[in-house]
């Protein structure tokens, strides 16, 4: 990144822009947070492929403000593979019975576009936690 070329002030700003977005993850904050459920049931149902497709789409789209995490079984093992999408100050949205194709659709529509892919949504909001 810091090549043999001498930096100018514009270069410095460019490096900052380019790397900063890759580093937002170190702050633990982003525009959206996508959780792929990877309990035993999720993995058995193909969550690995969903994760691969998701990461591929993210790098293709060249966006860095989406945080990808994994979590355990969400309790509805029959609907695996599942994923939850959270935007700041909005209720989490769960998608189920995913395939890489469905994921790509959700990615474009919801993660990039901000519109829920209503036909694929499993539930909106989270369980009450006592």
């Amino acid at each position, binding site marked *: *990144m810091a090549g043999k070329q001498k*930096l*100018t002030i514009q270069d410095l700003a460019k490096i900052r822009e380019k790397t900063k977005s*890759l580093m937002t993850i170190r*702050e633990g904050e982003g525009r959206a*947070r996508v959780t792929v459920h990877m309990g035993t049931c999720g993995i058995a149902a193909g969550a690995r492929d969903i994760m691969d497709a998701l990461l591929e789409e993210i790098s293709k789209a060249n966006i860095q403000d989406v945080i990808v995490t994994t979590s*355990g079984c969400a309790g509805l093992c029959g609907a695996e593979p599942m994923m939850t999408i959270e935007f700041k100050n909005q209720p989490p949205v769960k998608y189920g019975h995913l395939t890489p194709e469905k994921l790509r659709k959700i990615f474009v529509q919801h993660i990039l576009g901000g519109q829920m892919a209503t036909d694929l949504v499993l539930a909106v909001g989270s369980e009450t936690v006592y």
Partner: protein
Amino acid sequence: MKHYRAHLLVCAGTGCVSCGSFKIKEALEEEIKKRNLQDEVQVVATGCNGFCERGPIVMVQPDGIFYQLLTVDDVPHLVEEHLIKGRPVPKLMYVPPAEKQPVPKMKDIEFFKHQRLIVLRNRGRIDPEKIEEYIAFDGYEALAKALTEMTPQTIIDEILASGLRGRGGAGFPTGKKWAACAREKRTPKYLICNGDEGDPGAFMDRSVLEADPHAVLEGMIIGARAIGAAKGYIYIRHEYPLALKRMEIAIGQARESGLLGEDILGSGFGFDLEVVEGAGAFVSGEESALIASVEGRIAMPRQRPPYPAQRGLWGRPTVINNVETWATVPNIIRRGAAWFSGLGTETSKGTKIFALVGKIANTGLVEVPMGITLREIVYGIGGGIPDKRDFKAVQIGGPSGGCLPAKMLDLPVDYESLTSAGAMMGSGGMIVMDDKTCMVDVAKYFLNFLQDESCGKCVSCREGTQRMYEIVKGITEGKGQESDLALLEELARITKDASMCGLGQTAGNPVLTTLRYFRHEYEAHILDKRCPAGVCKSLIRYVVLAEKCTGCQSCKKACPNDCIKGTLKDIHLIDQSHCIKCGACKEACKFEAIEEQRDEAIQII
């Protein structure tokens, strides 16, 4: 660089490295490869997180989970659970003392919660060996501003307005130092970074150099622009190999990117830096001694004035600042003097890093706003005294500092308050002592250090520290006389008044503050021949209580000096003339038949 869904930030400060953090890093990388996660999970070595007590430390982002005391055997489980199944592993998390529930997130842990990071803002966040990660978090932005939008005078004005004072000990206003040097007409001028951190138990500068070397470089380049220096030196002690390595890497990267050398960022301004390895003497931290050492001479201070700003390195105008001071500079330039002076107290602005060590639950490195109380540091961040012992004193400011007692715990930490209490800010060492500490013994320890490290140039310091050490040593051995205390005070005063440099001028402090706050302990040693804390070996002895001894021979086997006599099932006897007072017998005895005696009766026998 590419996008990773998770970053594992492995602490690679000296503390964690010596606990094996590089092995943890290797194991993580291996396991991640085995699980085929290398394209989605990144492992990064960062600078010291400060919570050295709990190393090796790994922080997982974006989840903010803090794992501690890791071993290589924990790694496969950690990867499987957290990174594959997304379940953080509670058994590897921090559990606060006297609590049962782990605290998963770093930001919720008491130790981190109350800190305010400015100088250490990049610790545990960036890889110090990668310049682009420093740039990502606004690195070199202040330099760009200083080179394009500011003149040397406005840079100096900004530093003056910020109220920044030297973090190395004396607390001289940094802006004034720079202004004095900028006024000098003679060239060339030089800059020096003082990284000769010599206080026992202090490691602030080391951590800054290891965690964020580019911050120090950036501060120095800005300083060079302000005073018009073309060459600078970074003096790092030889005992800090990791800091030396990372600084060399940083300088190499900065040169390659044109941030050092000629025509920096196309501004026409040129500056270069060199690392000088110190040979390790406490006195080389004194600025004129350090300059002598850079010049290749013996590190001996000289009379000031003239100050280095007028006659410094090779007789030329020189600005010399401490590591922490330099690393603060870019933050002030980037965010403005008003922001910086909004932190802290009337006379002490900004934050200060302290190395919190001794009898404290959370040993480590903390950055706190000036004006915070000692109590907040010791009990809030530090987690109090371990093993349910009582707080006795905190030693602040290194060997030249002082010991403050429990009644001073609500003292605000700023330059003036500490000095008026008899201690000093110093470079930021903070040694906490519990009720098992003997304050006379502590004074003896520091005097021994000082008489050893005195360069010997001033008679008052060379002889004064030695005589004080001998007297205090005598007191701990039960040879003290009533006249000793007055003599000690007189010696401490003379050493202070008649010595040339900071070492001698503050050498009396350990004696003066312990006498001021713990005089009764000296008196117990001298008048009653008794060490109240049971530390001074000449004033305690171990005896076998005949009525409790079963003759089991455990103590006899435990004694490293073979001075316990007795046959099986007979009462044992300790040969006092050979006993080294190690207490091993007391620990070995299952019947509480060995007693440690601390009263005057000892002397009669």
